[in-house]
């Protein structure tokens, strides 16, 4: 029993880390119909900025996280303006090609600027130490990730469902022409949601760095994982993304515990099963 709870805790925290990284991608794919394979690259940029701020400049962790989000958004704005805006509404293959191209460029430049070695983001003392939660010890950092995940999910949900911006966004998604005829500046709405998605990606890249270490090939290494998680959840659905992350986290973690030798089989078999049963993802919009 204790083991089961222990595995569950691991699965939960790992799933939440995935969630924070992937939810931004889910937004761009679901709401903006953009298959952004460069999402991982933005998460990686966030990780690099945080690492530079916290490790090389010695700044406080929270400040480094903020800096990472702002910095990544700042980098993403011109990219959105000049590149991504051209492929909104383009066929998926075109989007895939363009965003793979952007990913390659970001990887190449990062490699050139920061070198090929692993970068770490030093955690503050409170997060770095294992905490005893009664039946086992767990890294305090994992609990932090859990909290972050809950905050992000709640915040996003209320933003989209409960604010004026959310109304405009949903309207733009359903019918861009009509929305813009009604006086909503859809390109601003798109730009803001893109920035939001990128910012979330950066946050995920930073707090998830303990699971997915920051290095130049990060963007390529985990591209498939992110894409799979979002598709399973149903692009654009926050509860769907939560569900997918927790479910796949659970399958992955339990599979690796029970039969580590066949861990990947479990994961991808689960993916195939879910996609076959729910082609639009668990909670995707029809």
């Amino acid at each position, binding site marked *: 029993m204790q083991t089961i709870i222990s595995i569950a805790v691991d699965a939960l925290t790992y799933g939440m880390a995935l969630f924070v990284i992937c939810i931004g991608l889910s937004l761009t794919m679901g709401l903006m119909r953009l298959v952004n394979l460069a999402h991982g690259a933005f998460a990686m940029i966030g990780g690099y900025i945080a690492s530079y701020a916290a490790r090389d400049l010695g700044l406080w962790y929270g400040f480094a996280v903020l800096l990472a989000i702002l910095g990544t958004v700042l980098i993403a704005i011109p990219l959105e303006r000049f590149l991504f805006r051209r492929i909104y509404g383009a066929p998926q293959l075109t989007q895939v090609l363009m965003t793979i191209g952007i990913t390659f460029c970001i990887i190449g430049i990062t490699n050139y600027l920061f070198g090929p*070695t692993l970068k770490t983001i030093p955690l503050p003392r409170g997060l770095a130490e294992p905490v005893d939660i009664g039946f086992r010890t767990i890294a305090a950092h994992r609990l932090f990730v859990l909290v972050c995940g809950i905050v992000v999910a709640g915040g996003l949900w209320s933003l989209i469902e409960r604010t004026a911006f959310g109304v405009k966004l949903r309207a733009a998604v359903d019918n861009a022409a009509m929305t813009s005829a009604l006086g909503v500046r859809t390109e601003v709405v798109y730009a803001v949601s893109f920035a939001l998605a990128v910012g979330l990606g950066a946050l995920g890249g930073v707090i998830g760095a303990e699971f997915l270490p920051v290095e130049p090939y990060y963007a390529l290494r985990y591209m498939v994982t992110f894409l799979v998680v979002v598709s399973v959840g149903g692009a654009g659905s926050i509860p769907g993304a939560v569900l997918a992350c927790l479910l796949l986290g659970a399958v992955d973690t339990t599979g690796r515990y029970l039969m580590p030798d066949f861990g990947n089989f479990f994961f991808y078999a689960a993916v195939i099963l879910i996609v076959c049963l729910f082609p639009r993802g668990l909670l995707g919009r029809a």
Partner: protein
Amino acid sequence: MAVRTLMGAAFGLLLAGTASAETVKVGIIGPFSGPFALQGKNFQAGVEAYMAANGKQAKGHDVEIIYKDLPAANPQASRALAQELIVKDKVQYLGGVYFTPDALAITPLLKQANAPLVIFNAATSAIMTQSPLVVRTSFTTAQTTTPLGKVAVDRGIKKVITTVSDYGPGVDAENAFKKAFEAAGGQVVESIRMPLNTTDFSPIMQRVKDSGAEAVFSFLPSGPTTLGYVKAYNDTGLKQAGIKFLAPGDLTQESDLPALGDGALGLLTSFHYAVSHDSPENKKFVEGATKAIGGADQLSFPSVGAYDGMHVIYKMIEATDGKQDAEKAVNAVKGLSWTSPRGPVSIDPETRHVTQNIYLREVAKGQDGKTYNKEIQTFPNQKDPGLAPAGQ
């Protein structure tokens, strides 16, 4: 016709470098870009350090190096590069090669090419049996792992769980450790093979905890996965619980140590080379290689494989007096022994694989506050057990 010749010449210039008659050319294939670029840079640093220290001539013959980039394991590309080096660039020697399948794709060409292959890294025992024209100056996983079995027993450890990445070298490591440890009287209670792309190691650590073993033996490819693994080992309290950590030195390669940080302190690894190795030869080597690679924290084990590989190639050039004769060249270095930066080494005349000391190291903190691999025990003159009597 003229057009064709012209185009041919133009493309030829584009594809190849310059050619000159008197020089002996050496083609080096390694991952100079891509996720493993750091290891390729180490190849280059080792080669450059050797040539800076010993001159660009061997017995009066100019030595020219041609580097070819092979970012990831890809036998098809490997064969194409080797063919180009041999046929077009007319190299007399091939060197480098980071991955096993890439080496296996080159071996069938060697006889016809009349060129020896000096492997700087690829660490699977079986490569040596594929062609008599292969010499290896790196290590095999079995070679670096085997002493750990005795170490474990000497330290009073009776039960060990093994966790290795599920691919060739991981399986080699698991088998070698099991054999050595059980021969010394220990018991491997469980063997886990982890998929290569595992990112969260907590469930594995839970398995380790449940198994009741006193130590965990691990093998993972150097790089990002190692970081996650060592973190999980610390975070899940295994370290505090006193479960020892044993691994071949790939896990604590010097270029990963800064990222691992204090979490790596106390890890026991066995390997053929530590950058911290205390000898005048190594001091000189580290100085030269650091200059070549551009930063002390990027230096790692492939550099020494390349450095010694160049030594072997220089000896071959001397033995054949710059003429192309692969068999004579290889025969000349069989039994060759010298003092490498890693310690005394020799080429086993039977297997053509390097015989060397394997060191037990512990990750410790130096006076400058940085962690390093501290050599604490030496196992002299280790051959490759993977190539022992029965072969592979």
